[in-house]
């Protein structure tokens, strides 16, 4: 800090030009740290944090036919008497309506099962990638990441063609003399879509975790006569738990609030929270209920999100 101040005084001569340029230069050189921090900080405060308070506020308001279509929380009744109106009806409504409760349970069920399926497919894949040779490893990783860069919507759309009643899978089934199965617009299609699109999110954290693993431990276990299954359960699995948790959270959290997949592949039959929120807002124009749905969804996800945050923090510290 001292050297900084000393050098600053020494190089002051090179600052020339108008007062404004001088001032700007001064601000940049002395306060650039504050600027670096404040610009993104303020952006996030306005466009990320503040919106949540608004959602919160509207969730406790009443729907009215007006613009905006909800009652204000704080009203100034004449002579400066403040009137605070808090309505918890929206939450009671969610709780009492079986549709909402079932939608919540169904969302959590679908994303839990999808997460487990992703883990079952992703774990051996990540393991195989880590154990392959240097060049192969890079090619395989590239292949895992590539679909992530291509449009999510189009990848979901691709499955519509495969699962349709006259789609390729049913064509193959009929070719083998089997009865065609209705797959599109069922819960099954939603599982396929979620596992398909979120699989890279499971594989990449697992890979990152496994790559740092000390493989000599496995060899030691084998040398000491442990069977492969024993080695896996006692050495590999415990060592990869951080990767499993990170991958599971990265699949579970966004899958719970998923909208596109249940809408395109599940049709009207599969209820998920993301869809209800979207429809409540766009079709029913009930903003307070939509906001209440959003807050209830956040309540479901706040624990997994905090866990993820905690792990991220530990990750940066360990580096």
């Amino acid at each position, binding site marked *: 800090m001292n050297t*900084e101040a000393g*050098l600053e005084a020494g*190089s002051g001569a090179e600052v020339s030009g108008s007062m404004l340029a001088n001032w700007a230069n001064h601000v940049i050189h002395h306060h*650039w740290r504050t600027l*670096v*921090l404040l610009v*993104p*900080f303020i*952006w*996030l*405060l*306005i*466009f*990320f944090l503040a*919106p*949540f308070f*608004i*959602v919160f506020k509207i969730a406790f308001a009443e729907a009215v036919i007006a613009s905006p279509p909800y009652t204000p929380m704080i009203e100034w009744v004449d002579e400066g008497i403040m009137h605070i109106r808090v309505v918890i009806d929206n939450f009671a409504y969610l709780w009492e309506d079986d549709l909402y409760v079932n939608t919540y349970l169904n969302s959590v069920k679908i994303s839990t099962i999808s997460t487990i399926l992703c883990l079952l*497919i992703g774990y*051996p*894949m990540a*393991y*195989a990638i880590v*154990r392959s040779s240097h060049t192969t490893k890079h090619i395989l990783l*590239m*292949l895992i990441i*590539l*679909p992530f*860069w*291509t449009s999510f*919507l*189009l990848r979901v*759309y*691709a*499955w*519509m*063609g495969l699962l349709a009643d*006259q789609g390729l899978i049913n064509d193959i089934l009929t070719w083998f003399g089997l009865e065609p199965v209705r797959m599109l617009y069922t819960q099954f299609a939603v599982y396929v879509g979620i596992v*398909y699109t979120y*699989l*890279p999110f499971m594989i990449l954290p697992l890979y990152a975790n496994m790559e740092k693993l000390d493989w000599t431990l496995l060899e030691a276990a084998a040398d000491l006569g442990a069977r*492969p299954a024993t080695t896996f359960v006692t050495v590999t699995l415990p060592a990869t738990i951080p990767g499993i948790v990170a991958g599971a959270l*990265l699949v579970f959290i*966004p899958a719970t*609030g*998923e*909208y*596109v997949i249940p809408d*395109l592949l599940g049709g009207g039959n599969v209820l998920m929270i*993301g869809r209800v929120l979207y429809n409540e*807002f766009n079709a029913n124009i009930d*903003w307070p209920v939509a*906001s209440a749905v959003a807050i209830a*969804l956040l309540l479901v996800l706040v624990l997994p*999100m905090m866990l*993820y*945050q905690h792990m991220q*923090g530990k990750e*940066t510290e360990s*580096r």
Partner: protein
Amino acid sequence: MNTGKRSKFLFSTICFGMAFLYIPIFLLIVYSFNASKIVPVWGGFSTRWYGVLFESEEIWASVALSLKIASVNACFATLLGTLAGLALVRFGSFKGRTLFSGMISAPLVMPEVITGLSLLLLFITLKEFIGWPDSRGFNTITIAHITFSMAYVAVIIQSRLAGMAQDLEEAAEDLGARPFRILTDITLPLLAPGMVAGWLLAFTLSLDDLIIASFVSGPGAVTLPMLIYSRVKLGLRPDINALATIIILAVAIGVLLAAWIMFRQQKQRELELKMSEES
């Protein structure tokens, strides 16, 4: 003995997994050349749907809007994300650090429906109080995209900074360079590859987003994903297959090209390092 069996198992896992990831995309491309109007029924090879696509003004307008949003978003997100990454890795502890790092990592996992809804409500509230934004469309979608893309850029920059050797910066400090000079002359050039990666990621994230854009957009502003979605909502469409093929090929070529360039640069650097060690 069982290593052979195990590697066979691992090999088949990879084959199965890759097939699962790529067959749907491959078939999507194949069926874009289908002459039949009913997508899953093969009616011979044809490129007629590409012709239909190029005649649609609606599609071109949405492509232009999406590209405009994506590039403006990518520049701002890279700037803000780089600043945020620098603050988080190099500034030690400061007031509000927990809140700041929380706000950086939360958009990564926040369900899009919540982000979209909350931002729309913010824009409506702002309009009520300060009269801005007077209309929703390009401006609001871009702001929404910057907010979540900058989080991804910050993560890339953070991991770059954490893995970067600080010896050059320390050397410059010993030679008497001012901290700001060190930032502009050493740290930022070293971060350039990370910033390029961040820019590309922000660009694709923006091109890809449907839900947040649908929430914060106004009448008249239709991005490409919004257009695609409104068309496929009711079922399969051959012209969308053609559009998908063009998008997927463009992205794949872009990503592979970028990867190849980075690979070449790394090779070059390793070679130079080796030569300097030898001499």
